[in-house]
């Protein structure tokens, strides 16, 4: 595709945020990734970039923004907790945002780390307008309750771009729940970059939930760096969207650091959901755990690429990764690639990936107890995902996540049975 249109639109707007021009130049130099790029082998980057660039020329009317604000306000009780950050079309909404005690928010300029075309969407995030903020928690501060981050869109042509740095000082702890919504406006696109910095023994729980409409695009990227004994724990639920691409990259730079990554992706219709994760074990005695589960129906396509990279000297690394998938239609597709790259010898690394159907023995068990086949299949499908969701310790959040999963299982009415 032609990126020169972007340059013209950019110049016309005279965009002001620092670093934007540099990001644009880097993008123009690198271009977009093609299918030949290992990181974009199964997902087309061009339609994502095209949407973002088109959005640059279409400014959203103020009335739409007001309406979006009203919709979020209406559901404010869903986002009850320690506090919330609300972004509408990538702009922080002051009226709805409430910061929890102990959390600071500052305007910042997060540098772009670009290694070429593979990072094109992150460069678009940096080049085009969007929020650029840093969220900070001081040393020894534990924030109680959940900080919700709501990404809302106002119009079908809206682009919600957020760049957020999350910085936790030593021994601080925080729970964040990111909600990606488009509140029934049809299309739209989210493109977010979150840079997580966890200092010594800091703990971050990060939950991300989305049940976007079947026309919405979503690109998210998380770059996390963990110091000594820091811990990051993520749960990602993808239950919607037309094309979804999540990149989750974690560097374990201090001894004793640990990351837990869990995810569920449920594809219906023609949805395309792509999860790329990478863990770099840089320091010794670091631990990573990963469990991503997929259910693909209709003509949907799931992509999973999980990489574990053990650097030289990262002895005592313990890495485990699992990616089971249920393929429930002959027209659905799953492309999975669990990768290991290991340059140290005192390591324990294992990964597994499976593609299959519902276990017949389990099905028989339920049938023998008088549960009809359709319900039994629904129950087992639900149970397949639920294991991942049990990692969410906040009850309200977990029930919300379970509901998202249940909603994606056609005619599923048995949730009361097991609640």
């Amino acid at each position, binding site marked *: 595709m032609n990126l020169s249109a972007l340059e013209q639109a950019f110049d016309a707007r005279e965009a002001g945020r620092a670093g934007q021009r540099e990001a644009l130049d880097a993008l123009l130099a690198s271009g977009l990734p093609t299918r030949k790029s*290992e990181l974009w082998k199964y997902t087309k980057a061009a339609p994502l970039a095209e949407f973002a660039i088109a959005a640059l020329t279409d400014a959203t009317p103020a009335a739409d923004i007001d309406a979006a604000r009203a919709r979020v306000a209406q559901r404010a009780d869903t986002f009850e907790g320690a506090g919330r950050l609300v972004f509408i079309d990538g702009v922080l909404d002051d009226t709805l945002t409430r910061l929890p005690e102990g959390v600071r928010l500052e305007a910042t300029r997060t540098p772009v780390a670009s290694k070429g075309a593979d990072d094109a969407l992150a460069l678009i995030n940096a080049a085009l307008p969007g929020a650029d903020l840093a969220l900070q928690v001081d040393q020894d501060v534990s924030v109680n309750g959940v900080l919700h981050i709501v990404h809302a869109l106002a119009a079908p042509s809206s682009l919600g771009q957020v760049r957020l740095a999350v910085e936790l000082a030593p021994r601080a702890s925080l729970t964040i729940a990111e909600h990606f919504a488009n509140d029934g406006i049809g299309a739209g696109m989210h493109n977010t970059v979150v840079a997580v910095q966890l200092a010594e023994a800091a703990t971050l729980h990060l939950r991300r939930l989305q049940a976007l409409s079947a026309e919405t695009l979503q690109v998210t990227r998380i770059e996390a760096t963990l110091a000594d004994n820091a811990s990051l724990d993520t749960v990602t639920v993808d239950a919607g969207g037309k094309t979804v691409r999540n990149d989750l990259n974690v560097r374990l730079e201090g001894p004793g650091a640990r990351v837990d990554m869990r995810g569920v992706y449920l594809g219906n219709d023609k949805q395309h959901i792509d999860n790329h994760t990478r863990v770099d074990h840089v320091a010794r005695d670091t631990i990573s755990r990963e469990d991503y589960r997929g259910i693909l129906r209709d003509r949907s396509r799931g992509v999973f690429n999980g990489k574990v990279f053990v650097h*030289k000297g990262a002895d005592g690394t313990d890495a485990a990764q699992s990616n089971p*998938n249920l*393929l*429930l*239609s*002959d*027209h*659905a*597709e*799953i*492309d*999975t*690639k*669990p*990768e*290991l*790259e*290991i*340059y*140290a*010898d*005192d*390591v*324990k*690394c*294992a*990964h*597994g*990936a*499976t*593609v*299959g*159907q519902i276990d017949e023995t389990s099905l028989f068990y339920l049938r023998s107890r008088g549960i009809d086949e359709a319900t039994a299949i629904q129950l087992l499908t639900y149970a397949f995902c639920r294991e991942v969701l049990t990692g969410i310790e906040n009850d309200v959040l977990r029930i919300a996540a379970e509901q998202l999963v249940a909603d994606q299982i056609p005619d599923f009415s048995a949730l009361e049975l097991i609640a």
Partner: protein
Amino acid sequence: MSTSNAEVEAFVDKKYKHGWVTDIESDTFPPGLDENVIRAISARKGEPAFMLEWRLKAFETWKQMAEPEWAHVDYPKIDYQAISYFSAPKSDADKPQSLDDVDPKLLETYDKLGIPLHERARLAGVAVDAVFDSVSVTTTFRDKLAEAGVIFCSFSEAVREHPELVQKYLGSVVPRSDNYFAALNSAVFSDGSFVYIPKGVRCPMELSTYFRINELNTGQFERTLIVADEGSHVSYLEGCTAPMRDENQLHAAVVELVALEDAEIKYSTVQNWYPGDEDGKGGIYNFVTKRGDCRGDNSKISWTQVETGSAITWKYPSCILRGKNSVGEFYSVAVTNNLQQADTGTKMIHIGEGSTSTIVSKGISAGRANQSYRGLVKVLPQAKGARNFTQCDSLLIGKECGAHTFPYMEVRNASAKVEHEATTSRIADDQLFYCRQRGISEEDAVNLIVNGFCKDVFRELPMEFAVEAQALLNVSLEGAVG
């Protein structure tokens, strides 16, 4: 290598000019590759017109292609114009005259492997005394095969004697344009083996390149084609455990297997080419394309490989499971030590209903070596009930080595079942302790554990091959521990 490099340079300096015409009578063609060279190779071999045309088309394709860079290996750029693409066998006068002239290090290795004396001479390239010539053995062999109707001959002979079979199957599994090295091979291949097993015949013996009457020094661009007709069965052994003397650094072989209905091909390889010295100098580049086509229903192709040699290995023996209920298997042990690099694995393409595949890959990395398993399991929408099981384990010995796994799974059928499992670990201290405690030396203990690690693959090898492979493994890992 140094002498041949000097020769190469001499040629480049003196004779290489645009528009030279190759003398087809000469023993070794000057370095360089163009249409003339290909015409000369073909003429030299007395090939029919279709063969020359095929080579030329391959050459055209090759010129348009770029050398692949995706593999996890690192080597200096190859100058394809500095290679001589044909050399006739050396006369006896040029060879070492007795075992006394052979590098003692090589002889020491033969000793450890327990290779019979008369074979050592042959392997070391010594001008073989008539008494030890294997011709007589080979003749009895050939009679027995002819009786069963099995064709087993050099590729050049097959092109002359059975052109209709060659024309029908050549390139039908690995097309000329398949990849860079396969295209190069298609253009310039020197010789190789051809096997045809007629309908319903179970080949009376294991076929081995070891007994092939063939021109020597054809290893560089070898081409193998095995066709198993309906209901037939063949087991083919390639290579041998002893390190072979070889003057070519670049090896780009192509192996094509075709299994028709109910046929079975078992292809076992032991590869132990020169891996280079401790600092990674010298050593063979082994860039091989191996692929089997399970064309008929209920057919089966099984690859078993033990890879311990070569400086760089780039090899993915694959199966196209086209027939209903066809079966593909890949069993591999790869050992890399010192500065060796290996990027190896397999592809299983499930097309036929009920096709099944099994992949068992065991990688051992020691010294400063790097090894990757790269595999693809692809299930197409029509492959109802396809089944795959993959197990790939890596064993790391030493702080400086690397072991990597890149498995791709692309599944497009809801009744398919695909499983992949991989582990990476080192030899556990408690395992070593257990053995040491029972009076087993550290080296023997390591050998025991490593052999146990590879057991699933060795079990698939023909018996005598398996015994040799174990000995080979121990030699390859010598000095890696302790």
